[in-house]
């Protein structure tokens, strides 16, 4: 057994986290910053932070993930990191030549009280930021929230810096994407194109973290939201923010700063959440829904009706981030599956409310928890008490899957042992079809592997 020490005996914990269902803020800030064009993320802290975040993102994408660090030493930790950051800004613009440096803080620089805004202003007044170049910043204390909070903070930092309100209202929508894969951002753009809705998508990691092999390393790949696009966000008609945890701060900032109103929505995962997204696009963009979108939706519903018997009543354990877990739970319930255990290390009060609304009637036995000590160890203990038929979550679930012999669908962050997430979306109706296909493959492979020989089915 790989997780030999996990038993069904649950001891109340208030201090110890075991096998977390979250990580810390800066990695989210780094990921969000990679979704703007010509940007080099910069980690203001010890080297290890930058190294760990780059490594995790690299393992997840199998792509170059470039970022710099302030390389704190004991001295900078005592006297403050201003000198390090100023030197870093000069070196980065001279050696690596990005258009934008996106600085995020760390637990270290936050604890010693470094003020990124003040240091960046000093860099500007000292003439360390060349003409036409930009340094943006976001505070990302690792001891608050989770990786999703860091993503949200960087997104807020980006719109705060770039979005400008001019006198020319633009006939476009802002789409603030929650933490999803490059494939999903590509899918959002495809849907928006089908809907004929002009838009700015922020961030956009497609063509950054799914770049082709052509024998040439591009430090700044062709993808990412551009500066003119980000500036124009202040003139958009409206903002659709996808995923409360990841995008609400940026949406509020656009509203306060540029008076662009916003609609807070779920990530379009599954039927209903995608329906809501499509309806808002139609309403806010004043467009009708094209036949091709109806067809995509129809195909998804069709496959569910075809395969319903393999889904009905199946107990599922989920872990990951609230923005994904909420619409995913809703989707599973819509397919008559039972998301019985759900954990997320990411705190936030609306999680419980939303889950209660989705689950109280259809899956009253469901246990869900987020925030402190809501970890994979707890979820595994619940599974030990009463098992499930399926696991859905990041790569760390493979240890539970093997020990308990439970089929496992990888979704979330990080996925470091399989490919596919960069290329095949889970958003929209087509994404729903992919989730469905993966669930069915796992469940049906399990049936094929485990059933008695006489009930081994050719046609299923």
């Amino acid at each position, binding site marked *: 057994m790989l*997780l*030999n*020490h996990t038993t069904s005996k649950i001891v109340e914990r*208030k*201090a*110890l*986290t*075991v*096998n*977390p269902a979250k*990580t*810390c*803020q*800066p*990695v989210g800030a780094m990921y969000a910053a990679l979704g703007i064009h010509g940007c080099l993320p*910069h980690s203001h*802290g*010890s*080297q*290890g*932070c930058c*190294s*760990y*975040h780059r*490594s995790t993102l*690299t393992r997840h994408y*199998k*792509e170059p993930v*470039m*970022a710099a*660090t302030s*390389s*704190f*030493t*004991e001295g*900078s*930790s005592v006297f403050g990191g201003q000198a*390090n950051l100023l*030197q*870093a*800004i000069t*070196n980065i613009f*001279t*050696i690596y030549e990005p258009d934008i440096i996106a600085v995020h803080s*760390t*637990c270290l620089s*936050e*604890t010693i009280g470094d003020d990124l805004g003040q240091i960046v202003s000093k860099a500007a007044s000292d003439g360390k930021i060349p003409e036409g170049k930009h340094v943006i910043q976001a505070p990302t*204390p690792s*001891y*608050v929230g*989770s*990786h999703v909070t860091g993503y949200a903070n960087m997104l807020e930092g980006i719109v705060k810096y770039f979005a400008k309100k001019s006198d020319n209202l633009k006939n476009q929508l802002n789409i603030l994407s929650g933490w999803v894969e490059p494939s999903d951002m590509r899918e959002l753009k495809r849907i928006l194109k089908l809907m004929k809705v002009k838009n700015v998508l922020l961030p956009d990691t497609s063509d950054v973290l799914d*770049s082709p092999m*052509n*024998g*040439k390393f*591009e430090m700044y790949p062709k993808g990412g939201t551009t500066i003119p696009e980000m500036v124009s966000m202040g003139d958009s008609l409206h903002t659709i923010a996808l995923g409360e945890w990841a995008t609400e701060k940026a949406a509020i900032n656009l509203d306060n700063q540029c008076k662009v109103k916003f609609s807070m929505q779920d990530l379009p995962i599954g039927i209903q959440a995608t329906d809501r997204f499509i309806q808002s696009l139609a309403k806010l963009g004043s467009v009708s829904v094209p036949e091709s979108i109806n067809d995509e939706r129809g195909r998804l519903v069709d496959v569910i009706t075809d395969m319903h018997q393999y889904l009905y009543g199946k107990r599922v354990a989920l872990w990951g981030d609230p923005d994904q877990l909420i619409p995913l739970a809703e989707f599973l319930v819509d397919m008559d599956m039972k998301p019985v255990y759900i954990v997320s*290390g990411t705190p936030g009060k609306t999680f419980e409310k939303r889950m209660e609304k989705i689950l109280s009637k259809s899956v009253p036995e469901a246990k869900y928890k987020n925030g*402190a000590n809501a970890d994979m160890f707890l979820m595994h203990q619940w599974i030990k008490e009463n098992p499930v038929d399926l696991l859905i979550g990041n790569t760390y679930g493979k240890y539970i899957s093997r020990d308990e012999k439970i089929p496992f669908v990888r979704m979330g962050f990080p996925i470091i042992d399989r490919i596919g997430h960069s290329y095949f979306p889970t958003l929209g109706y087509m994404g729903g079809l992919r989730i469905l296909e993966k669930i069915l493959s796992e469940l049906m492979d399990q049936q094929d592997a485990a059933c008695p020989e006489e009930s081994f089915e050719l046609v299923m």
Partner: protein
Amino acid sequence: MVKKLDITQGLPDPSKVMDEIMAKYPTKIAKKRQKSLVVNDPAEGKEIQANVRTIPGIITQRGCTYAGCKGVVLGPTRDIINLVHGPIGCSFYAWLTRRNQTRPAEGEDNFITYSFSTDIQDSNIVFGGEAKLKDAVREAFEIFKPKAIGIFSTCPVGLIGDDVHSVSREMKEELGINIFGFSCEGYRGVSQSAGHHIANNGVFKNVIGNNNRERIGKYQINLLGEYNIGGDAFELERLFDEAGITLLSTFSGNSTIESMEYSHMADLNLIMCHRSINYIAEMMEEKYGIPWVKVSFIGAEGSAKALRKVAEYFDDAELSAKVEEIIEREMKKVETVREAVKAKTEGKLAMMFVGGSRAHHYQDLFTEIGVTTVSAGYEFAHRDDYEGRDVIPSIKIDADTRNIEDLTVEKDLELYREDLAVKKEKLLKNGYEFSNYDGMMPEMKKNSLVIDDINHWETEKLIEYYKPDIFCAGIKEKYVVQKSGVPLKQLHSYDYGGPYAGFEGAINFYLEMERMLCTRIWKMVTTPWKTDPEIVGSFAINE
């Protein structure tokens, strides 16, 4: 086709490309970096700058002190709970990502698959985190009943004044198990290296010597600086077992805290990774009189040499005969594969920038299949790992090094092995080398380029210049280099392959290089219509 660098007349002097690299740097940076890039001349013995701070803003390979302490040295040991005191990330990122394989017996403790953290929050930053840490220790003890708990400080911990050592002492008293702390905050040193030293000190003070176990074998050794990436230690255990050499403990691949507790009963310490573990070897010799020798089991020749060195030390005809029998049998297998692979790989060029020992050791494996290393360097080594231990007295002790405690060790009057000291004296007279490491540079070719703490800009320029057939580094470099059309072999994680140590390991590595150096996929990177332009149609069929 890309024109390959011609090395038939020896390696070209890379001074020109070095100038191009320096030209991009601000003057101050160029001045500093210049000392870390050295055109090698083994006859002359040049000095390299190493173990100094990375310049802020430079895209470095390096990690932090915590990574070196928890991740490298303590992480591979299975029967201890490694509790990380800090925000969640530090424990999350070090969770199962280093591929330290371990093989517990049925029912034996194994916590490597778990991640433990105090997940400190902003209130702890303001009001202190010691109370939470104590609770976490108690909870860990209640739920898991471990034999030992190690507590690792992360950056904010030292700054808010939490004292992990006093908490450890208090909890040790309260719970009655071995509990000890490490002040391995990420910023403590210039790289992981500081963390290695801190880990060495902690293990030496709190673990080694706790159990004076009776002798269980005729020849008792420890293997130091072998972390069982990809099962390397398993392959070495197989060899020692067969030779009749008793491996008391490995620091720290496939190891237990229990075995470290009686490791001081060994007759000899073998060092693989000199950088990360030489401190323990030195301290064990001072306290217990156990001599140490540097070996490398990376490469078939090196493995044979290492086994012979152990046999020579014990000076026993039976052992020597057994060792020779193993070497002969294994080398036969190795040679068959080596010859077949070498026919395909001879003349290829390699570059490697990794770790504190691997960039040296792996050159041997490449040499065995006719691949030349044109440029190499370490991520976190010191001058002695490049130039040899002879330079240690002349290494300038800077503030960053002074920051890490050097333990004062005294002779253990009861356990000190005078017999081994006598043995050492005798062997020294016969030319046997103890406590020595010559480093990487004396073994590298003239004009090869040696670089400490290579960064992204230098990597890019050197790929352009050398056009190597293979590049060895880590995960962060992997796809950067591969996008340039050069295959990269990870020498931290082995790209999830291995083992590469010992004889079986050498065979695995040769075959892996055959795969990587002879694959056809790189030939498909360029589109056929790049050289055979599309015909521009006079009529359009698209819309």
